[in-house]
């Protein structure tokens, strides 16, 4: 499972439409299948570990620990595939994936796009800014359009909490929540868990601190659910305006004092601070915020042990994380990006794997 990533950046060219765009390689057959670890699995029934019972992935509340583990395991194998120079895999040839990003997010969108294309699916990007969406079309009508196009899987990011669930209710196709309002960002949490598992080995007895704008963070909500399910201890830290009392409803410890939370922490996750929070009066200044909550090398030393640093990106260097820490050896930030593709490949494959393709983990590379 432990993977070495020589170059944390996704392989050059992947996701680049000239190389992997629709059409050009669409009819590429399994190339004999050099280095490919995907194969047909025959006769797998309902009880197969590869059988995925969920139509959608909307949040992590509904997943069992075993299901989360299945995703992480599958992602491990996908990562192997990912770091080898391969042609497009034929696993999902003939399947279509639509990306609907109502909020700007180059990172998450391209991560999903790469994941789907590597698996051989046809990807349609709904350029929301230019589409009917901005002409006032309701999400319901958009869902009906997608339904009519016989899309197999939709990835949606939307500013409204519950938008993914809304879409899922009205679509026969599967829906992956790529982030909905302040509610959930399940694939981010899964990639964070995957990254942590690679470096910590497991979650039992591990302490994870999440620091920053907890109130507005779907990343924090989903991570709390995933990490606690997997057995980690989670602590939330941030200023009272961004960590109001009702956040205790998430069922984990909260504190305003980051430094008191750090001792014993195996990993610390800094959340991105939306700079407009200052204008809304939630923060007096970025200066005071960074003085109290920015992750620095000195501050991290308070854990008293080797501690990894995560961040969902994009970074505000010098606000929530010090630049030199972000670029240091204990930073897993670039690895998170690579793992994001692997985790999304795993999910898409599990969700669309009904065609009979699944990972054959016994297979050795050619």
């Amino acid at each position, binding site marked *: 499972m432990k993977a070495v990533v020589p170059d944390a950046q996704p392989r050059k060219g992947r996701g680049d439409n000239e190389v992997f765009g629709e059409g050009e390689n669409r009819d590429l057959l399994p190339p004999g299948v050099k280095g490919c670890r995907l194969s047909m699995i025959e006769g797998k029934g309902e009880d197969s570990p590869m059988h995925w019972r969920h139509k959608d992935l909307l949040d992590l509340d509904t997943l069992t620990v075993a299901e989360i583990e299945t995703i992480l395991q599958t992602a491990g194998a996908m990562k192997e595939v990912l770091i080898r120079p391969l042609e497009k895999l034929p696993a999902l040839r003939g399947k279509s994936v639509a990306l609907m990003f109502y909020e700007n997010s180059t990172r998450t969108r391209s991560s999903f796009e790469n994941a789907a294309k590597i698996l051989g699916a046809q990807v349609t990007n709904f350029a929301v800014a230019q589409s009917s969406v901005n002409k006032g079309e309701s999400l319901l009508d958009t869902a009906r359009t997608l339904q009519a196009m016989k899309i197999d899987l939709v990835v949606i990011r939307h500013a409204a909490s*519950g938008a993914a669930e809304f879409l899922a209710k009205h679509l026969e196709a599967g829906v992956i929540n790529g982030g909905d309002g302040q*509610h959930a960002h399940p694939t981010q949490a899964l990639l964070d868990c995957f990254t942590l598992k690679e470096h910590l080995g497991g979650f039992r007895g591990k302490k994870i601190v999440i620091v920053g704008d907890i109130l507005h963070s779907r990343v924090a909500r989903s991570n709390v659910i995933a990490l606690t399910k997997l057995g980690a201890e989670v602590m939330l830290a941030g200023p009272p305006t961004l960590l109001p009392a009702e956040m205790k*409803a998430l069922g984990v410890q909260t504190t305003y004092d980051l430094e008191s939370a750090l001792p014993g922490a195996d990993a610390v996750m800094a959340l991105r601070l939306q700079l407009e929070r200052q204008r809304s009066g939630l923060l007096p200044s970025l200066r005071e915020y960074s003085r109290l909550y920015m992750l620095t090398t000195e501050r991290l030393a308070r854990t008293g042990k080797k501690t990894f640093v995560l961040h969902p990106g994009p970074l505000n260097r010098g606000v929530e994380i010090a630049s030199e820490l972000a670029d240091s050896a204990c930073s897993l930030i670039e690895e998170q990006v690579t793992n994001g593709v692997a985790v999304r490949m795993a999910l898409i494959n599990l969700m669309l794997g009904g065609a009979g393709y699944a990972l054959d983990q016994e297979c050795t590379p050619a």
Partner: protein
Amino acid sequence: MLWIKNVHLLDPTQGISGSGSLLVKDGRIAKLVKPGEELRTEEALAVFGAKAEEMIQQVDGGGNYLFPGLIDVHVHLREPGQEAKEEINSGSRAAVRGGFTSILAMANTRPVIDHRALVEYVRLQGERAGKARIYPVAAVTKGLEGRELTEMVELKAAGAVAFSDDGRAIQSAELFRLALEYAKLTGCPVISHCEDESLAGQGVMRKGPTSARLGLRGIPASAESVMVARDVLLAGETGGKLHIAHVSTKESVAIIRAAKAAGVDLSAEVNPHHLLFSDEDVRLTETIYKVNPPLPSKADQEALLAGLLDGTIDMLATDHAPHTWDEKARPFDEAPFGINALETALAAVWQELVIKRKVKPEKVIELWAVNPARRFGLAGGTLKEGAPADLVLFDPEWRERITPDTLESKTQNTPFLGKELQGFPVMVWVGGKLVVNRRKVQD
């Protein structure tokens, strides 16, 4: 000439609860035969000035309740301007089917009811519909903009019975103070929708554990309560006549209780949905529960019920807020606030509060007929002889599933859709005219 026999009379204004009968002549209650009294046919003929029994229409009430038609002081009829949601005609029909013989129509239509012609339009449309009595509420400020007062004296002359910017709260304390002062010229109450917009922000449900879990933006309870405190202080200082709409927090109840004890000219309403649903019922995609003020905590519900029972809260009101299916079929953030309630509110209160012995039947009539009539100076709300014959024959055993095809309202945004409720009006009269018979609105 109508004689409604074999009924259980309920009239808190006369302390009546028991079997009797009631005679209607010329649209008014001609004679009330109280429990223990008898009325011979010859005597009834004398009341009517009739020669033969055949001239009198007799109705056997089957032992069901007969009480004064309910008066709902908080209804959105959407006309003019948003007729896809509701019209005065459809809302008027929905009202009587739900047991309401008089309703107050809020002013937040398009255009806003802030001119004499518009007040008269609403009143006349109500008369044309010919079902429930429609009393216009006129705006406090022109265009609901919270800047300049409306011509309240003229609006009252046109038929307005109260003033409200409901749907929005007047954010300027000074302007609201002036409204309370100026409305004294009319004697009408100013109805306040209490919401501090800076606290409510972009919230969509009550701030608390559920909003934290769902990641829905929260509206703190204080968004209402600080405004209630402001408004009762201003009412006390000015001596103005204030009515607080849709009270939903325990802090508001406490403030109102204290202000009443201090002698402020104050009344308040609570909406059934705030008693029957809490923030814990909210689900991420069930916009049917998106309402303003948002569904409260369980602790608030207890305080609201206690306030109703001890007289702190004077009345029930539906805040009937119809919206189309398309408008509600959106993500929670984007769907409009509001619950369609006229045809389900009484049954829901009956099923959840009366049958469960939390509220007595007489109390429901006091809260939904007697007190609204008194506070807003309306006819009705009593079975006293000479009062208009606005009557409801109510079958406490009647069970009915709420379905789109049975609803008279143009829209169906009710959390009871598809569910069964118990306790419905089976016959309703307005001014002696039968408007509902066996649950069907009469054309």
